[in-house]
């Protein structure tokens, strides 16, 4: 290794290390803080817009006079108050139906009036689903005789109609959905890059969704959230402090290290504290703004309703419930008197503090690692190695990239998937949204219901992981034992000198291996058929009763064992035969001269010479058999009731019959860990990978 001739400066290394580590920690922290601030500001804007939308829906609904009411509202009251739908539905009760024409006029007037007092709203559209019409619109493009509402929606407005249909389907699905099931969002919401919010809510009449009201806000520039000054201060303060301390410490390495770690820790802690304060102020501002919005909107709505001449009696507005999420469930952050709920705010602040502590801890770990990497000189050594073996790294680069994309990415994706609840219902969601931590593993490993005792004796739970694992082990051991015994015996016979037609037998015995194994499996499946299979017909010729092979776990096991035995002995035979032929004949000759018996020759010459070839073959064969998908899947298909399922077929069924991708990924990862442990242990015990010893 070519070392620079000048002595290493610890001072310089720790200064650079601390500068980089603080940049990493504070930089990431500042970016996270900016993200959280933007998110909070956006959420504030969204909540305010949703409140406006709620007010708009309430006004439109009252103006339209509602329809005949047969069924009571189906939306259940939830904790924290009624949903918006229920509030509107409740308000509708006891109203007289209005004729359709006057209703449409009233809606248009209400929408126009609402738009007039809301300069921040760019456009309001009301869509009637039954006849695909635009019932009202304040969008500039929809003015003038040709395009004014009411009219049928145009082709370009199909997304609007589809959104309405989607909201209708969501409301209906949520009403008839199963207990505890994920709810579908009942409000439409999109944010365009220029800050325009587009929101939509279903309009209900008589307990059914009949239309949709959509509202667009005006574009609004977002203030920058990244605070440069605190970031620069938090970055440079520890570096300058270390610079000053270095004057005192000189080149004392461990003093420098301790000072750098301490400075970094204090710095990150202080920045976290500052960030928490910023975030708390933002939350408070949100609560205040939302309360103010509710007060303002309810006043505007009441005034507008009075203007329109809608009688207020019997249908009071419930503005406290206007602060809802996309599922139209109250967020519960606003108390009944319209002020922010202090208790809830405290809870949120507590959660923020917890999250902040975790983020600071994670950032600290990463920046300390970077500090150590640079400060203790590892970075310099890595750089030197990379520079020195430049050519070697360059040559392996293409292969490295290929491996990364083709092998490691799918592998790690599978492992990441195993920590999620990914399934057919949430393929559109990101990994973060479906993250469940170790839940899948805990589910699989902590389920010990392997068997239960009943009146008829022990009843196995065939879907239990441990049952399947035991069965897989039994399956592997018996198969490999059969394969090795049969293969070795046949190889010894074929290796006999002067054995007539030897090449012919060799070819015939290799055939099972040469045939595609799924074809062999299907043939065996047919041979084991209860009425028409050749095996049962032979049993009947011999005077026995036909066996229903796949009705009992044991006979089903025998069937798959036979199939796989047929498929696997050829491989063992070929390996043994090759190894046998490479044993020098003079070894046997010398043994004979020394008077060794045949058995002695076999034990002392043949077996030891076979070992280097057989042991890797057995290791491979164990792994193949452990994952022998085709035979189980095609021949027994796990019958009866999953009793002959092995881990890999079980995992396949979890993924592609039950569509529990995350759970199946966890299952596969466990299979991988088992095989990894086995392989490591096996090669350590036998030294197989060390070649002929």
């Amino acid at each position, binding site marked *: 290794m070519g070392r620079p001739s000048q002595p290493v400066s610890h001072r310089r290394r720790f200064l650079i290390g601390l500068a980089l580590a603080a940049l990493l920690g504070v930089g990431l922290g500042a970016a996270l803080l900016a993200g959280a601030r933007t998110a909070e500001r956006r959420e504030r804007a969204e909540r305010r817009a949703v409140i406006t939308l709620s007010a708009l829906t309430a006004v439109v609904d009252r103006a339209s006079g509602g329809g005949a009411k047969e069924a009571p509202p189906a939306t259940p009251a939830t904790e924290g108050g009624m949903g918006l739908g229920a509030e509107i539905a409740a308000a509708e009760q006891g109203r007289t139906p209005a004729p359709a024409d006057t209703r449409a006029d009233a809606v248009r007037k209400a929408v126009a009036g609402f738009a007039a007092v809301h300069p921040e709203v760019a456009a309001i559209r009301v869509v009637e689903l039954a006849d*695909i019409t635009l019932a009202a619109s304040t969008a500039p493009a929809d003015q003038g005789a040709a395009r004014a509402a009411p009219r049928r*929606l145009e*082709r370009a407005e*199909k997304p609007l*109609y*589809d959104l309405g*249909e*989607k909201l*209708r*389907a969501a409301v*209906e*699905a949520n009403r*008839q*959905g*199963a207990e*505890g*099931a*994920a709810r579908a969002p009942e409000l439409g919401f999109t944010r365009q890059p220029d800050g325009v919010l587009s929101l939509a809510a279903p309009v209900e009449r008589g307990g059914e969704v009949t239309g949709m009201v959509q509202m667009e806000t005006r574009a609004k520039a977002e203030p920058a959230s990244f605070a440069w000054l605190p970031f620069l201060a938090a970055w440079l303060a520890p570096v300058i402090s270390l610079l000053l301390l270095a004057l005192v410490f000189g080149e004392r390495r461990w003093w420098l290290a301790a000072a750098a770690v301490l400075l970094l820790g204090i710095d990150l802690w202080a920045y976290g504290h500052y960030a928490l304060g910023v975030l708390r102020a933002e939350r408070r501002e949100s609560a205040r703004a939302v309360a103010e919005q509710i007060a303002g909107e309810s006043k505007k709505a009441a005034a507008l309703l009075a203007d329109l001449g809608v009688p207020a009696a019997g249908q009071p507005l419930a503005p406290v419930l206007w602060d809802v999420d996309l599922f139209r469930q109250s967020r519960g952050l606003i108390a009944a008197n319209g002020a922010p709920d202090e208790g809830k705010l405290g809870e949120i602040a507590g959660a923020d503090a917890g999250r902040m502590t975790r983020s600071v801890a994670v950032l600290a770990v990463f920046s300390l690692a970077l500090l150590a990497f640079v400060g203790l000189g590892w970075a310099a050594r890595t750089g030197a190695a990379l520079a020195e073996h430049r050519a070697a790294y360059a040559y392996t680069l293409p292969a490295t990239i290929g491996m990364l994309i083709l092998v490691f990415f799918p592998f790690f994706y599978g492992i990441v998937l195993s920590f999620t*609840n990914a*399934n*057919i*219902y*949430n*393929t*559109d969601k990101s990994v973060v949204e*479906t993250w*469940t931590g170790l839940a899948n593993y805990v589910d699989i490993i902590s389920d010990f219901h392997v068997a239960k005792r009943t009146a008829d004796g022990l009843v196995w739970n065939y879907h239990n992981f441990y049952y399947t694992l035991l069965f897989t082990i039994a399956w592997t051991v018996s198969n490999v034992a059969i394969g090795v015994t049969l293969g070795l015996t046949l190889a010894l016979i074929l290796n006999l000198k002067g054995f007539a037609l030897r090449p012919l037998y060799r070819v015939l015995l290799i055939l099972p291996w040469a045939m595609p194994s799924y074809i062999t499996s299907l043939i065996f499946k*047919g041979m084991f*058929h*209860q*009425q*028409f299979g050749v095996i049962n017909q032979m049993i009947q010729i011999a005077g026995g009763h036909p066996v*229903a092979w*796949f*009705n009992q776990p044991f006979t089903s096991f025998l069937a798959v064992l036979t199939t796989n035995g047929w498929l696997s002995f050829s491989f063992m035979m070929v390996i043994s035969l090759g190894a046998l032929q490479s044993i020098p004949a003079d070894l046997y000759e010398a043994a004979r001269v020394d008077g060794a018996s045949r058995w002695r020759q076999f034990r002392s010459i043949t077996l030891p010479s076979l070992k280097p070839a057989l042991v890797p073959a057995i290791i491979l064969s164990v792994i193949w058999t452990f994952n022998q998908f085709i035979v189980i899947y095609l021949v027994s298909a796990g*019958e*009866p*009731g*999953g009793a002959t399922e092995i881990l890999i077929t079980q995992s396949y*069924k979890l993924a592609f*019959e*039950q*569509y*529990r991708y995350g*759970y199946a990924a966890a299952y596969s990862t466990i299979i991988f860990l088992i095989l990894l442990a086995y392989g490591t242990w096996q090669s350590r015990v036998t030294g197989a990978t060390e070649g002929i010893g």
Partner: protein
Amino acid sequence: MKSHVLRGILGALALLLVFPGLALAQKEIVVWHGYRGGEKAAFEKVIDTFNRANAGKIKVTTLAVPYDAFADKITAAVPRGKGPDVFIFAQDRLGGWVAAGNTVEPLDFFLNPAIKGRYLKATLDAMTYQGTTYGLPLNFKVITLIYNRKLVPVPPKTTAELQAMARKLTNAPAGKFGLAYWYSDFYYHAALMNGFGGGVFAGRKPTVNSPQNVASLDYLLKWINQGFLPAEPSTALITSLFNEGKAAMVFSGPWFLGEVAKGVDYGLAPLPTISEAGNKPMRPWITVEGVYVAAPSKSKDAAFELLKYLTDVPAARVLALEGRQTPANKGVYADPQVANDPILKAFRQQVDVAVPMPNLPEMSMVWSPVTTAMNVVVKKAASPKAALDQAQKEVVERIASLLKK
């Protein structure tokens, strides 16, 4: 050499300048389908006719996708915008696609009562999920009674007749059976299940162990105990029995007809009514091949034109007579040539009592537990009630484990 290329490019550019419409107005539509053989030839003929009628406006190209990879290809490619503009698939995945999002385009905006009225009702119902229509029905598949004319001169109208006839025609030691169908498979059993008034879902709640479903399995056991059904049925076994004249009657669908050997003289008739259930008809599930517009498609209007064309009478006529498919279009059955076709007529009759197979995404959670229950019952390892209770428990668990987040 170079100048040739250059001249070619210049020529092409000139052509584009002269006929800008050629380059701009023609929409390219890619269709994925799973057809082979005669079905594929007929389908491509229809597409050819469409292309000729719309020359210069729409150009449709087709791609046959191997059936077993088809569903996964759609799930993987379409939501990411890498798929076709139009694809053809059965309705059983529809709910899953809608739940996953950005796969199938809702069509209600384009539809009017005239278009909706073109189809057999059950087939359009199959294309509807949560009140929204997502595809137009192209063909349907339904099981019906297929019988060997030599052994069964007049097909049975009721299950009482069927059982009497089947018992008479059975000679188990000689491997001859009066009736053969894949009774241990849930799809085939559904005809009895629906006939007894059972089903898999009420709304969105699974009802696997409903009394009607139990009754239908009890009834199946009665059939099995009479010995006129072969043990361990499978499609391969049933086909070979029927072709060798060892199965007099079979319950199966259009896919079976292609497997029937040349010399066998067979006829089709509607499934019998169930004498033991107040003479209500057996009601098989129908699977409907729908044509869907892919949600990320760039030419949805052109795609919908194609959908309309494919499901209209002239196209349906070609698909029926040349592709030997059973169109979902009602009008085509008024065509004399179609009306006189005994096979098409039989399937058309069967639809009137058929039930669309559920297209809820939860359906995929039902198959495996119910198949296990069916196997257990058929092997008499448990009573229908116990087996279906167990299946119901598993279905509920599986759905719950999927819905929890």
